[in-house]
């Protein structure tokens, strides 16, 4: 699971004359984790204390000069480095007030970027692809700089990665619609060039993001059609390979793009399973492409979304649990949290390599596509999938739909079924939502029972069944869906209380806020129920068999704890909860006492294990011994 928290504005942005230009060149960290170095598109560098939203210092170059690369912090010398007018490298310290008086060096070629990261020396990437360590460059600024790239090849994006004695500079280039990735390893220096696969539309990627995971460099890139691809390059090896390698890619995510293509959008990997995408539409909202969303790439599920006011510049930075997004006239900081999702816990693993999504779910091989298409269909966009037939479920009455579903379910082809069941369910749910009179409980139940469905495939189903008070279907879903979000679990709780709810997987952090939505009466009822269940089971602990659909003692206790955590103050105030609480307290007390007594017995009995058994345990015997 992932969540976006309440954000705040770090600073306002100066509008540039050219609307397509971003008002910010870059955001970098310095030695303090709460600091951000923001370089605007013109002349100034500002250091902010993020939590206070307060500038700590600002440096500006003279009128007429222009900063051409984001300022970076040299972690080794504690100095800031920036490049003005492509060729002038400026180095200054925190206490320097005037940038003009700071150290300057003019180099012989145009600089693209200076990159710096903790644990590594800053490196300078020239526009023609050459790479130098900053130190060695400053010691001889007038040294010749070679051209690596061909005439018309231009750098689009670059980054550097420092990890455990390895230092990489990665940059992508574009030349006549062909994109390449260069991986420059430093110490020893090797350069490897990879050609990115061409997208059918011929478009170039909108954004790149790179990370080092499990000794592999992962490159994530977003195309205007909403596809997020991942390519993996081994961090070691291939050193000897000459020439240009083709870089294989895998589709990690298909973000629904709505009408038209994405303009200014950007994707950044948050961890191995989560991607933040800015400048995309929210699948369930119709307004423009001005959302920040976190997607789970393993399960193709939208985890969190937030609307960003104003025009999105397609820029997102991710530092230390915070996303920095420039939009409209502001730079916003949005804290986020990613956790192993309940679905992942339920399945027992997270996929590390990028090929998940196809195989991670037991329910289907291409759920990713399905879910996206379903989302599309809800928004009444033209379907991109070949439906099995021109179906009655679009318009037909309930019994016709029922027949169709039966026909579909009775067909044996599992592979095909997986696709169509998901589609069908989505259509039915969408139609039910649109037409209040239309509801097909039997058909839906049949579809759920195929076990090809999960919550991500058809997010509306469970809520729909709740709406219609179809508890049978609800129960069925709770039983069979492994990936029910906590908010929905709570919604179910509100409506009815069951053994199945308690058994659904959840994670405390995400459940707690939603549990708070329950009102007092519901809480009391729920507590009473839990106490009843606990008492019932504690009476016959041994008869509990794992195969039965009953929650374990631990599950019950966990829920009691959660419920009390969420509502303790309310319950203390509520007069009608008093009896229940004191009951619960005395019950817990007696249990604690019982267990402490059991603990004593246990340690005593444990001693018995240590004792050796003697063959002779009689109280009296007459034995013969011999002495010499």
């Amino acid at each position, binding site marked *: 699971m992932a969540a976006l928290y309440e954000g705040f504005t770090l600073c306002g942005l100066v509008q540039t004359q050219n609307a397509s230009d971003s008002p910010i060149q870059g955001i970098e960290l310095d030695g303090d984790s709460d600091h951000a170095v923001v370089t605007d598109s013109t002349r100034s560098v500002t250091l902010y204390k993020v939590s206070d939203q307060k500038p700590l210092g600002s440096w500006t170059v003279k009128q007429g000069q222009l900063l051409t690369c984001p300022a970076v912090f040299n972690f080794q010398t504690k100095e800031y480095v920036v490049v003005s007018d492509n060729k002038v490298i400026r180095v200054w310290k925190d206490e320097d007030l005037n940038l003009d008086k700071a150290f300057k060096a003019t180099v012989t070629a145009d600089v693209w970027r200076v990159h710096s990261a903790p644990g590594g020396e800053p490196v300078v990437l020239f526009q023609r692809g050459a790479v130098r360590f900053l130190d060695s460059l400053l010691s001889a600024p007038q040294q010749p700089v070679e051209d690596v790239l061909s005439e018309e090849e231009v750098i689009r994006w670059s980054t550097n990665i420092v990890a455990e004695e390895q230092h990489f500079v990665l940059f992508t280039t574009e030349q006549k619609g062909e994109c390449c990735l260069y991986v420059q390893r430093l110490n020893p220096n090797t350069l490897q060039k990879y050609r990115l696969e061409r997208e059918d539309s011929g478009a170039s990627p909108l954004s790149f993001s790179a990370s080092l995971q499990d000794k592999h460099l992962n490159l994530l890139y977003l195309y205007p059609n909403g596809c997020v691809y991942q390519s993996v390059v081994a961090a070691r090896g291939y050193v000897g390979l000459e020439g240009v390698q083709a870089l294989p890619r895998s589709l990690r995510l298909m973000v629904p793009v709505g009408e038209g293509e994405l303009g200014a959008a950007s994707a950044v990997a948050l961890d191995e399973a989560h991607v933040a995408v800015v400048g995309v539409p929210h699948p369930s909202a119709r307004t423009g492409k001005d959302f920040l969303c976190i997607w789970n790439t393993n399960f193709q599920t939208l985890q969190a979304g937030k609307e960003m006011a104003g025009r999105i510049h397609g820029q997102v930075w991710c530092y230390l649990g915070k996303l920095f997004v420039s939009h409209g006239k502001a730079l916003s900081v949005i804290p986020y949290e990613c956790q192993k999702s309940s679905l992942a816990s339920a399945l027992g693993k997270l996929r590390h390599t990028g090929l998940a999504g196809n195989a991670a779910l037991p329910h289907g091989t291409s759920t990713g596509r399905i879910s996206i298409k379903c989302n599309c269909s809800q928004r009444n966009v033209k379907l991109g999938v070949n439906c099995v037939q021109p179906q009655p479920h679009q318009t037909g009455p309930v019994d016709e739909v029922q027949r169709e579903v039966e026909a579909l379910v009775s067909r044996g082809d599992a592979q095909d079924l997986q696709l169509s069941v998901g589609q069908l369910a989505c259509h039915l749910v969408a139609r039910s939502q649109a037409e209040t009179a239309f509801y097909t409980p039997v058909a839906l139940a049949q579809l759920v029972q195929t076990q090809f469905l999960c919550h991500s495939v058809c997010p509306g189903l469970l809520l729909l069944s709740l709406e219609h008070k179809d508890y049978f279907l609800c129960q069925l879903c709770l039983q069979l869906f492994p990936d029910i979000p906590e908010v929905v679990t709570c919604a179910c709780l509100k409506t009815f209380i069951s053994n199945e709810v308690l058994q659904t997987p959840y994670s405390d952090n995400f459940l707690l806020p939603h549990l708070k939505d329950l009102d007092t009466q519901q809480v009391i009822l729920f507590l009473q129920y839990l106490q009843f269940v606990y008492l019932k089971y504690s009476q016959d602990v041994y008869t509990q068999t794992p195969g039965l659909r009953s929650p374990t003692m631990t599950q019950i206790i966990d829920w009691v704890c959660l419920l009390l955590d969420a509502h303790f103050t309310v319950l203390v105030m509520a007069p009608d909860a008093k009896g229940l609480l004191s009951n619960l307290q005395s019950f817990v007390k007696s249990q604690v006492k019982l267990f402490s007594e059991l*603990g*004593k017995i246990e*340690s*005593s*009995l444990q*001693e*018995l294990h240590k*004792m*050796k*058994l*003697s*063959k*002779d*345990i*009689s*109280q*009296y*015997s*007459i*034995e*013969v*011994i*011999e*002495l*010499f």
Partner: protein
Amino acid sequence: MGEFKVHRVRFFDYMPTAIRAMAFNAHTERLALGRMDGSVEIFNFADRYFQEKVIPGKDSRSIEALCWVGGRLFSAGLNGEITEYDLETLRPKYSLEAYGGPIWTITSNSQGAHLAIGCEDGTVKLFEVLEESIQFERNLDRQKGRIISLSWHPSGTQIAAGMMDMIRVFDVPTGRAVQRLLVDRGFGGSKSRETVVWSVVFLSDCTIISGDSAGKVQVWDGHTGTLVKTHLVTKWDVLALSVSKDESSVVVGTSEGTVIQFQFIAPTLQQQQDKEWVRTRTFKNHTHDVRALAEIETAIVSGGMDTQLVVRPLLEKFDERSHASALRKIQFPHRNLVFCAKKAGLLLFQFPGQLELWRLGESDGHGKPGDSLPLKRKPEKLLHLKRKGEDHICCSALSSCGGWLAYSTMSSVRLYRLQTDNNDISISKVPKLPKILRSAHQLCFSSDSSKLFAASSQSSVLVIALSQSECKYVHTLKPKSGSRQPIHLMTNSVDGKWLATANSDCEIHVYNVQKLKLHCIVPVYGSCPSAMGIHPTTNNLTMVHADQQIFEYSIVEKQYTDWSRKLQKQGLHNLWLDRDTPVTHVTFNPKNPEQILLHDMHMFCIIDQSLPLPDQKTQFYNQMTLRSLSEQERPSHLHAFKICKTFQVCFNGDVPGYLPCSTSSGPSRSQPFPPNHRGLGWTSQSSTGQHKHTSLITGAYLVVAALTPDRRRCSRYSSSACGAHTLSQSGSRAPRRPAPAASEVGVGSGHSSGAAWIGTADLDTHSP
């Protein structure tokens, strides 16, 4: 050498009671130990920790604290009385009601002029120590809440008092409370419980160190009343504190059974001036609460609920390894609690509250070494005799014919006539004992059961003539030395002529009982005799001392025998001298006059005087080696000391022989169980909870092994000449009931460490 039949008896249900208090007298090197049953034991630390004296307990007495003033011993307890003990008559000299409710603590100032007690009613009472008694002087300012612990400042002008949730400092001359130190409560659930300051010490630099029920050891500045440092050492209670003489070290005892040392040292080598109290070492020698502690010059002495006294040497104080640098655990009394009527085959068990009389079982089978013989008759409990009155039994005796039984408490002696007629037993109290016979330190019947000897005050012995019709005072045997010390050992010869006594002054007197006069005094040796016996045929007196030395003295010739001189000249083997429990019984093999039998808690030993003495290079414990040798090789490896440390060793072998016999008995240690968290209250201090729990698991029990003579062989000897021997052995963990919960780790399985030999008695054989 021979085969023996061992009677293993595991129904001596003796359990020492928990240790509640102790006080060490550095001047006399005596440790006084108070137990839950009100008994007081005196250990001589200068003489191998020998348990020199035992003042028996009393139902109404409770000991909460002990205190020495010079050579005088005081105790105070929850019965509200202060008691001074007479260490010569082994009884309380007087008891004084303090009128302050239960007394939690008693302590004297360093000058020895005053005693301070802490009472339940919140008063600290001062008593002046007079020549023969003590006298109430005054109260210090009365406080709200009980006074749990007290400590005088060495100057004697201030007293620190541990209370509930606080420590008070009193100015003694004015009696005013001058400081109030608030003690924090525990965390979590214990927040609502008052913190009991179980123990305080007041150092000469006005530092106060306290231990409390929240598990804290706190260091305070007594001048300003400020807290200097808190050490959280346990989840439960810190019960006892003791400071070393030079005030450089403090030890604390916790209810987890640990003893933790704090030392006043500089934390770094650079700053030797800035010393602070630093936790240095943790010892875990107890399974339960450590209730009493003393830090002596070279060791930490601790005791508690698990009933054993542990002497933990501080190894940095020793230059070389010796018996003194070894950890010592004293679990059982250093004297006999089991007696055997050899002619009748009866066993007498002495408990503080009752006597038990058992008839040994019989078997008529013959077996190889290692066999358990089939029982023809099971052992049988004949009698359970409860004492009368409040005083606990201090000594008892059974005549060898099984016809007389006597016991003494502090206040009275009782004599019974026993008649066993096949399976019936009748007991009748002998009325009208001579008035002079009021109490006895030791009792013993002559071998022909015609006389009863009772050790009385000032080392004198009363001789009482017994007959079917009457019981008559004959004479008082008095030592010439005029010693006022009590007799702790008494033995007489089989021919009825000699009686030997030993007292705490280490004097051994031999009396001629027929002439009723002193025959001779054995030259005084510096260590207390722990056991002695008179040889049935040669009338040589064999003595073993607390320091493990063995002497043989010819009563007839009034001089040490040649063997004894030879033994002293050559010296005992170091392994013998380094043993850590005293020999508690000496007896002789009737069939081989050259064999002496002795035992301590862990082993029994047969000394064959005809064999060469082992020198230091000889393998001392050689039974295993001997077994592995062939019969031809064996004689060249034999030496005089034949030691059976474990029954396992004894079980193997195939040479049939003749044999004497022995019994053994003793308690076992209780099994560990989680420490009970104790509140403040009397029930928490009673030992019932513990023992109940203990018996639930394994119980306290005892192994008694008796060696009875092989009847086949015995028939060759006349009954009078055939004095077979009985050893008592105890302490193996044997189950009291055959429940699966109590499995046995006894002697039989080779766990010698659990075995303890407590007493021996002579057992005569039946005439065929």
